């Protein structure tokens, strides 16, 4: 007889159903303790202001926790997009959300007396939909198992815990299907076909077993399913699965100001004896500690890390995991009363002799922020690295020797190039560039052209700033330079960990800029740009600063610069990290590239926010590295792979790093002549095949050079 209304009996065939409620108590207690023991560790951390702008924060949670925005992005590894690994995560998550909804429906009907689980809702949702989404969980687990056990991508961490999680999820989902299937079989459920997977199991089981056997098996597996699921729920908060809770939290408390301002401001006046920088886990902020518990061990950060890709020991993933283990192993120390901070040895020292937390690894970071860009749960790896660098530099005066030389030069001469024979005004020879100190009324000047050390003191970049100055003159912009008075604005010092020197330099520069009434700054250096834009406001300097790409793009838009003799070569644009990832300027330089050439403008595999660092940030351009571990060679190969003959950029560090990289990869000597003739394209623009052939030769050009070459006023034609 067919029941009038579709539904099923809750707790059918289940002996002692009350026992389930009893078991719920230890499950909640044990699981809750798992979360609470993490929470109380975070609470030992120092202050961090992350409660402002709640609407933005919730929107971020919506996009990246609920919507899994970053999880679903393509991950890159060694310059190539890796196969989409995020599908399995989506299947499991969505599947479990639906399964949880189904359990909630059961609870409402059984424990709260509602009568939802019947009729059409029962058939379409509780049976069909839930069955299919349960199947998605199994598919997802299958993909995850294949990845973890067969493909074994190197960015994963292979722990027993991770394997146990996969097995547990599989057992939970599979046993659920068995319970369903055997109930359908044993009760001859007329609505059985609405649960297709369960129905298949029912049919299969009936072929080999009697309904009475299946009834017994159902009762046993029901309890098995219940116990395994409860055990899983109680255990999960002790594993990386805690990210179900910690990840949304961490995303909520993300740094909304982007990477640029993410360095903790320091107060050198306030507390004389506080350790400078961080060498001790007990000195981290609560957000730092929450970061550690949010890590899912997905390894995207390390896969994206240019230093790691180039074969160095730096691994943001292992930094986070190392700190996480340190946090849990040192839980008692963290929970003990805070010590006073005077000259005590660190309670939980961060620095290790070898491995991810060694000084050697931490000095390999180019501060490119690729790790933070790809982290699905918004962990902030970079500030942690720089906090330790601050400690090494300021408390121990320990840094790689060539960085120490650069730092000493910064202190003495205001630039990081000891031994340079160039002066800051050499590039102006033959150009009539006004200098602030020589003007009657510097206040009349609209724009300060901030040249930057790497542009003024590296000969290759003279052609860049000459092109820029001539473009500005051509467009009738009122500008001047500081000339010999210009001093580094502090980026290099800050990224090498010398916050004290940074602040000293920032104060001197602010006084100088104030003297000339400077309000608007244009600079061809993304590092200077970022420092003025994001770092100076934290030490009391506020300027309207633009990178030359956006400033020139506006001049082009206004018709004040016109490209009348665009070239024919193919140009691929390399995004400088401090312009793109740090300040989200991707389009202006591309616009300039576009109007400078009639040729193709192929993109590298990793571009825009996924750009791969040139290897020169964070003070690394001042160091000598083993040839086989140089980041710039990796990037040069990626640029060459586009088949373009020119790689465009907008950064004096990228310029030299890429030139050296291209020279090393192609066997060409770097060209001395800044206005080097562009090599004939390895193939004409219109015949470029879909599969790109790597270019055999390539030159590096700044966007200002490309644009100047393409304007009518350029004398080069």
């Amino acid at each position: 007889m067919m029941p009038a209304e579709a539904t099923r009996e809750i707790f059918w065939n289940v002996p002692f159903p009350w026992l389930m409620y009893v078991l719920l108590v230890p499950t909640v207690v044990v699981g809750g303790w798992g979360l609470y023991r993490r929470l109380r560790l975070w609470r030992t951390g120092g202050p961090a202001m992350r409660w402002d702008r709640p609407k933005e924060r919730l929107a971020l949670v919506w996009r990246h926790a609920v919507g899994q925005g970053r999880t679903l992005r393509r991950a890159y590894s060694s310059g190539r997009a890796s196969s989409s690994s995020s599908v399995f995560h989506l299947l499991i998550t969505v599947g479990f959300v639906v399964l949880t909804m189904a359990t909630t429906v059961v609870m409402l009907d059984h424990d709260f007396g509602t009568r939802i689980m019947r009729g059409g809702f029962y058939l379409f949702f509780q049976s069909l939909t839930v069955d299919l989404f349960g199947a998605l969980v199994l598919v997802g687990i299958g993909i995850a198992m294949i990845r973890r056990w067969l493909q074994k991508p190197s960015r994963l961490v292979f722990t027993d815990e991770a394997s146990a999680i996969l097995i547990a999820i599989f057992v939970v989902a599979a046993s659920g299907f068995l319970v369903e299937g055997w109930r359908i079989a044993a009760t001859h459920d007329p609505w059985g076909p609405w649960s297709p997977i369960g129905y298949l199991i029912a049919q299969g089981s009936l072929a080999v077993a009697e309904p009475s056997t299946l009834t017994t098996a159902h009762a046993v597996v029901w309890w098995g399913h219940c116990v395994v699921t409860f055990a899983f729920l109680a255990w999960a908060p002790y594993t990386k699965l805690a990210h179900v809770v910690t990840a949304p939290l961490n995303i909520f408390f993300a740094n909304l100001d982007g990477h640029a301002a993410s360095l903790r401001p320091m107060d050198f006046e306030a507390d004389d004896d506080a350790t400078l920088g961080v060498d001790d886990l007990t000195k981290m902020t609560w957000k730092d500690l929450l970061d550690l518990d949010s890590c899912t061990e997905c390894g995207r950060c390390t896969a994206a890390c240019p230093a790691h890709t180039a074969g160095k020991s730096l691994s943001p993933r292992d930094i986070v995991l190392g700190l996480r283990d340190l946090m849990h192993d040192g839980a008692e120390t963290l929970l003990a009363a805070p010590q006073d901070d005077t000259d005590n040895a660190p309670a939980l020292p961060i620095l290790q002799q070898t491995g991810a937390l060694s000084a050697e690894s931490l000095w390999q970071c180019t501060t490119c922020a690729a790790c933070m860009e790809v982290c699905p749960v918004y962990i902030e790896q970079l500030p942690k690295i720089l906090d330790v660098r601050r400690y090494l530099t300021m408390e121990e005066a320990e840094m790689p020797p060539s960085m120490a030389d650069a730092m000493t030069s910064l202190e003495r001469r205001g630039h990081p190039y000891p031994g340079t024979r160039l002066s800051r005004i050499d590039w102006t020879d033959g150009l009539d560039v006004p200098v602030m100190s020589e003007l009657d009324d510097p206040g009349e000047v609209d724009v300060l052209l901030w040249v930057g050390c790497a542009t003024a003191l590296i000969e290759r970049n003279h052609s860049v700033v000459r092109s820029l100055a001539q473009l500005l003159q051509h467009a009738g912009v009122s500008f001047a330079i500081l000339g010999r008075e210009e001093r580094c604005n502090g980026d290099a010092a800050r990224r090498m960990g010398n916050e004290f020197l940074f602040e000293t330099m920032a104060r001197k520069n602010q006084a100088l800029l104030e003297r000339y009434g400077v309000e608007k700054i244009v600079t061809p250096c993304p590092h200077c740009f970022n420092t003025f834009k994001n770092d100076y406001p934290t030490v009391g300097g506020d300027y309207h600063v633009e990178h030359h790409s956006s400033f020139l793009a506006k001049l082009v838009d206004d018709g004040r610069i016109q490209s009348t003799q665009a070239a024919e070569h193919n140009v691929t644009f390399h995004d400088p990290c401090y312009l793109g990832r740090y300040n989200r300027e991707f389009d202006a330089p591309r616009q300039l590239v576009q109007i400078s050439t009639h040729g193709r403008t192929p993109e590298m595999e990793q571009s825009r926010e996924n750009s791969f660092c040139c290897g020169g940030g964070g003070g690394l351009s001042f160091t000598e590295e083993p040839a086989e571990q140089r980041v710039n060679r990796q990037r040069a190969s990626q640029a060459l792979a586009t088949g373009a003959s020119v790689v465009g950029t907008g950064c004096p560090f990228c310029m030299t790093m890429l030139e050296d990289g291209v020279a090393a990869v192609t066997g060409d000597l770097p060209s001395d002549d800044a206005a080097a003739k562009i090599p004939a394209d390895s193939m004409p623009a219109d015949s470029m095949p879909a599969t790109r052939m790597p270019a055999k030769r390539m030159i590096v050009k700044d966007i200002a050079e490309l644009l100047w070459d393409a304007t009518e006023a350029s004398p080069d034609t």
Partner: protein
Amino acid sequence: MNILVCLKQILDPDIPARDFRIDPERREAVRGSADLVTNIFCENALETALQLKDAHDGMITVLSHGSEEAEDVLRKALAMKADEAALVLDDDAAQADPLQAARVLAAAARKLGSFDVIMVGRESGDWGVGQTGGLLAEELGVPFIALVEHLDVDEGKLRIRRQTDTGTEIFEVTPPVVISITNSENNLPRIPKTRDVMKSYRKPLTTIAVADLSLTPSSDSYFRLVEISVPEKETRCELVEGHNLEQRIDAFAHRVAEIANTTR
């Protein structure tokens, strides 16, 4: 061991040639945009003293003769962990010749106390005369050993290794003594910790007006600066010709000989 290290502040010798100018009237270099730095050999001397202190304990006083700006040199030395600092304020310090400088330093050293070792740099990076150390020893009436690259303490005596043209000499000296330090790979100046840089600004610094040293003005200096100029360098490029390599080498050799003869 009580050590005095004399430090001189000079115009950064590493400025680009293009930025280096002189004032022929005043017979001195124009400061321009150049920075003032500690003379590198003085830093080698300080580093040597610091190493001696690290190994054997002791007390390091740093002394400079200069303008108010020379305070920077002393603060940096304090940051490197010198114990005390004194500045002989003299706006005309830049014009002082080695003998005048030695007299000022000797008077200041006597005023500051008694020292077992007085260290100076081999020479200054601006004038490079290299005589202040010897004259200082003479003024103080103690022995002088020049171009020292290493020293050690052995039962109250100093074992001193100095460079010579033909090798090294080892001396055993009973303090007090003045020594001039040369640069070696072992005395590259250390980089101070930022914490110590910050603390250095809170340490006391003794200032002595040069007038208070009651030096008798003397006009007996052996040293007179007549004229200074920046040597002009001219570069010309010439290509020698020839049909084959041999001819070109021949032509090249002839041309070199010609030039050598005309400039002889």
